[in-house]
Structure formats: structure tokens, C-alpha cells
């Protein structure tokens, strides 16, 4: 039995940052990388299934990204994942979430897992569509925002609870294999043990090319994507103003502003 967990190395912004020269992203020096928070919960859910099962369960983590992503994959290995796969080719640069879903689906076809877990969304891009598009490319059932999961390895159905608006839960029976996007709070992610971290450092990370999963450069990248970033910018501010001075001065200033707006 195998669970494939799709993970992403996300970028958090430093407090002050510069936009890249091409205007399409933030300058890399100002980005702090870490494993996507949602993916920590996905991995933990897979580990819980593995650890509570009598049958052998293999947890495989997969990510799409350059060399630096190895650090996040090692974190997953340290927490108990059995294998880690990283897919990269320079032509993948600029791919949108749907295209990343296509790549992950190609990995899933090769790995033939019984379940695919992904985070509901990534904290940096927030499209919330990678997991769903993976299911679409696989033509598998999917469920989003999963807040509870009852699943026995090998079963052809799983019971899930999805988080809806207003604190409501929706209980759903889903056919397996399926793609589930896991919500924060479904479990309590573990810290990696020191032993796990040391062992993870020695474990290989399988580097997979596009050809290895039956794709080509023409299937990925900005040109093959359904959406492309045109520019990234900070909107102009300046509509708010602090009014200083004594109470009388503040009142006079407010009257002046109101009169200006009224054209008086």
C-alpha cells in the first residue's frame, strides 16, 4: 500500500523586500524558504495511517522544484517518509498550479499510489488548485479541505469530513484511490527526532526528469500554462493620514479636509 504526499517548498517574505528586475516576483534574497504548513499536516496524516496499520504502508513525498527543495524533502524524510522524489527541469520554471498538477499526476501514474494527499493550498501562492488539478489529470475522485479522515489501507472507500463555511462539516464517502487536500488542524504534526534527521541526511532523494515521467518541455512552463504572472507590485498607499496637533488643531484640520472634499 502506498500514499503519495505532494509537498511544496514555500517562500515567506522578509519584512522589507525588493521586486525582481523583471517585475514578476520578489528578489530571491528576500525570500525565506520552508515546507508549506498544510503539507506538514498531509504528511502527518499519511504517517498516522502508516503507523496504525498492520499492513505495510509506504509514504512517498514528491515535490516539484530546484535543488533547494531537497531541504524540505529531507524534513519529510526525517519525520518518517520512506522515500522522496523531486521533479525538476529548467523548462518547468513559470508553470502555473494546473501544470504542476499535471507533473504530479504523471508522478502518481508512475508510482501507482493508493491515495494522494496534498495541502489545501500553499501559503505563498494560495491558488488551492494543485491537488485538485492532480486529481483531474488522474481522473480520480477528489475531496478538498479535509478536516478528518477515516481510512484503512487497502479499503476501496474512505470516510472524510470536509470543512465548510460557518463551522459546518460535510461527511463524505469517497471511492479510492482518491486525491485529498488536507486542512490545517486535522492532526498535530510531529517534530522530527534527531535520529530521524541524521538518518534523513543519508537517505537519497530521487531526482526525476520530465522524460522519466513521460512528459516533455513542451508540456510544462509558462507557455503551456493556462495562466501567467504579468507583474507583481505593491499597490500605492497614501489614502490614510494621521492628524496631529492639539484637539482644536485636529478639529480644524478635519473641517478643512471635509471642506476640500466638498469643494468648499
Amino acid at each position, binding site marked *: 500500500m502506498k500514499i503519495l504526499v505532494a509537498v511544496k517548498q514555500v517562500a515567506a517574505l*522578509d519584512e*522589507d523586500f525588493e521586486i525582481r528586475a523583471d517585475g514578476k516576483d520578489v528578489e530571491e*534574497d528576500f525570500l525565506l524558504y520552508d515546507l508549506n504548513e498544510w503539507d506538514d499536516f498531509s504528511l502527518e496524516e499519511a504517517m498516522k495511517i502508516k503507523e496504525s496499520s498492520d499492513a505495510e504502508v509506504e509514504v512517498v513525498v514528491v515535490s516539484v522544484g530546484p535543488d533547494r527543495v531537497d531541504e524540505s524533502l529531507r524534513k519529510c524524510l526525517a519525520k518518517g517518509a520512506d522515500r522522496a522524489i523531486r521533479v525538476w527541469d529548467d523548462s518547468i520554471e513559470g508553470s502555473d498550479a494546473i501544470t504542476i498538477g499535471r507533473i504530479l499526476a504523471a508522478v502518481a501514474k508512475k508510482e501507482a499510489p493508493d491515495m494522494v494527499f496534498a495541502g489545501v493550498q500553499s501559503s505563498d501562492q494560495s491558488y488551492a488548485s494543485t491537488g485538485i488539478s492532480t486529481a483531474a489529470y488522474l481522473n480520480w475522485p477528489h475531496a478538498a479541505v479535509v478536516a478528518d479522515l477515516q481510512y484503512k489501507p487497502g479499503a476501496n472507500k474512505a470516510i472524510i469530513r470536509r470543512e465548510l463555511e460557518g463551522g459546518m462539516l460535510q461527511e463524505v464517502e469517497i471511492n479510492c484511490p482518491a486525491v485529498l487536500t488536507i486542512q490545517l488542524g486535522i492532526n498535530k504534526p510531529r*517534530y522530527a527526532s*534527531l535520529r530521524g534527521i541524521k538518518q534523513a541526511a543519508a537517505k537519497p532523494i530521487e531526482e526525476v526528469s520530465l522524460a522519466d515521467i513521460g512528459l516533455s518541455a513542451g508540456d510544462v512552463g509558462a507557455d503551456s500554462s493556462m495562466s501567467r504572472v504579468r507583474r507583481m507590485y505593491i499597490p500605492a498607499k497614501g489614502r490614510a493620514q494621521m492628524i*496631529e*496637533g492639539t484637539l482644536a488643531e485636529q478639529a480644524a484640520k478635519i473641517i478643512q479636509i471635509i471642506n476640500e472634499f466638498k469643494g468648499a
Partner: protein
Amino acid sequence: MLALKTAKYLVDKAVEAGDIYSAAAVYLIANIEQRVVLEGIMFGKRRDALALARWEHTPADVLNTLCLRGAGDAAVAVRLDRNQNTPEAALARLYDVELNGNASFAVLIAQHQHTPNKVLEAIAKFSDDIQSLKAVSKNPTANVRVLSLLISRMRNSKMEEVIVGNVAANPSTSDDLLATIYEKGDTRIRVVVLAHENCPLFLIESAMNNLASETTEIQRQLAKNQRLNIDALSYLSVSQDKVVRSGVATNMASSDVIIKQLLSDESHLVRRALAARADLSAASAKRLMLDKDHWVRQWLARNPKVSRKVLDKFSTDPHADVRRAVARNEHCSRRLLSVLAKDENAWVRSAVAYQKNATRCLLEALANDTDVDVLCGVANNSRTPQWILQKLITSPEADIRRAVILNRKAQRKTLLPLLEDSYYLHRLLLVSSTALKDNDKWALCDDPDFQVRFAAFQYFAKSL
């Protein structure tokens, strides 16, 4: 192995690690040649220089060097301006570099607590940026000369009221300056001056002599002042304002007669203040014992002045917070602790577990509790036997394991397994543990977490 831990050995090890945080930890003990290598590691990439300029634990000498090398980079400079560890010299240099630059940088320098007074003075004298001037007026390290200068410069400007208000609240403001501010200030400013630690006695006496004509805001402030005489306190104790009366109830200068009179005050604010008094008499405690407000009873139950009889009575109080307060009282008897250890409320049992008077026997019984807060108390209590602590360090609850680490009596043998704890903060805390030997901590220099490595290298560097 410890003999090898010379400065050179430690720096070489940090260089070998090639990590910016380990390098920063040993920078101070490195020789000139080693510093060049360390600087290459720390500042070789702009990304790393930015990370160190921002990190709140970066040592001052590293920030100073970074300032010398990278002050021209605005992104580095703004992080140095914000970093609480940036030393005086670096801030003075940054001020010179940024003098004609972005005003928001000047604000950061104006509010930094390491900015030298000569720089603050220059800002106070020459800056036209209101935000910078306001930042100087609030800066607690600004001296009287700077603050006086600022007030003179702002006189008759539209910002005078704001600046004067900030200076009145600034802990560095002298009694003379406060007197000047008080003389010209409105009620709000006068309240701030009266609350100031350096407020001259004659101002308090003056306000005290005119109590009837003072505003409620000033009366509220004066009521808490221990320099008030009995007549003034008596006058304020019958104020219509409950906050004024509550101030009198808190004031340790209030006489027994005043306290007695306030015991039947209609406001629970006043009675709560009385219940918490460190000089509460037995008679007063008896009066407050039956108070309907559970906070009054709770404060009373925490008060170390109350008798065992009062604590006995409160140990069966229907409100769990009152029973918990009994369990926290430093004079709570062992007999009462035994009763409260069986309380239905876990929060009450937890207070027993944290009690310094809890017996070994009681702690052994509480160690079988299933509540995390109770077990944290047992783990933290210095009377808990080591064999129980050794059991508790295997708990899956990080809070319980951390409580063992924070237990002052936890022995080396108990703590050793925690050096491998999965939570990085626990390993970080163990770096400064006095129960562990240096040899035990040495492996932390190779810890996977950068903060632990930094703390370990810094610990060894400081112990050379």
C-alpha cells in the same frame, strides 16, 4: 576533549560547519585572520548578510562589522536600524550614511535604544521630520539635555503638546524638567507628570493641598501615590469615583482607619484591591471572607497574610479559581494541599503540583494524574523525586518534558536523554543547564537546528 576547546579550536569548528549562525557565535573570540574567513561565510552572499542583519540574536560585534561592510546596501541598513542588538557605533555610522536619505531610516535610529545621545541630539536639533522628533521624545535612553532641547525647539509649534506629553512620560526626564512641564501643562500632562518616578515632592504636595479643586483624573493618580499624607488619603477615600477609592485601597500609605472604612465599599474594584494588600489584618480578612465577588475571595485566598482558618474555609469554596488560589498560597498547609490534590478541577490539582510545599508523597500521587497541567506542575516541582522526572521525560507532551528541563533540581542523569529531544527549543534550553557538563553539550554544536548550534557555540565561546 575540553582541553582542546581553545578559541582557535572553536572557531575552526565553526568555520568547518560553514554556517552563518555558528560563525556569528564565535566571531568575538576569533583572531584577525579567522575573522576574515568568518566574514566570508557570514556576508559572502547578500541573502546571508540580510538574514544576520535582521536576526534578533546576532551579536553586536557582528552587526558592527556588517555595518562597516554593508551600510551602503539600503536593505541591510534598514535591518541594522531595526535590530535591537545594533551597537552605538554602528548606529552613529548609519546616521551619518543615511543623513540625507530616507526619513523612515531616521525614525528607526531615533527610536533605537542604543543610539548615542549625540545622534539623538543632532536629530532633536536639526531634523524636520516629525516622526523622528516624536521617536526621540519617547526614547528612554535620551538624556535630559536632548529632551530639554526638543521641548525648546517645539515650543509654540503644533507638535508641542504631543512632544511635551511624550517627554513627561519619558523615564529619563528630570525633576526640574517635569516641574517646568507641569507648570504649563493641561490636566492630561499633569497626570503623566504626577505618575512619573522623578516627580518632585513639591508638585505632589501642591496638588495634595488643592485636592478639592483637582480633576478626577489627577485625583486618581494621586490616590496611588505613597507620598500622600493621611489627610489627603482620607479625603480621597470618600471620593464619588470608585477608581480614586480603589487607588487609596491599593496605597500602602493608607491608614488602618481608612482601610477599615473601605472594607464595606460598594465597588468590588475597591474590595479586590484591599484583598490583595500585603499588610491585610486578620480582622479585615475576616470581613472580606464572605464577599460575594469571587475575585475578592480569590485575591484573599492568594494573600500570604491570611490565616490558615481563612484558607480552610476557601478550600471548599464553590468557585474553582478560589480553591486554586488557596493551593497557590505560599502558606497553604500540607494537610490542605492533600485535600486539594484530590479536587475535581484539574486546574486546582495543577496548583498543588506546582506548590513548593507539596510533599514528595503528594507529588508521587499526582504523577499518576492524566492531566497535562498537573503533570507539568509535578515535572517542574523541585521536590519531585528524580525517578518520577525520568518517567516524565518520556511523555509525548512537549510541555511536560520542558517542565522537567526547567526544574532547578533536575539532575544530569535525568536531563541527558533530553539532549536528543525532538523539539529544538528543549535542546536550546539545555545549552545553559548547570546540571549538564560541557562534554554533554558539545554535540549540540552539530545540532540540526541553527538556533541550537548558535547557542552552543556562543556558550562555549563565552566559557573560554
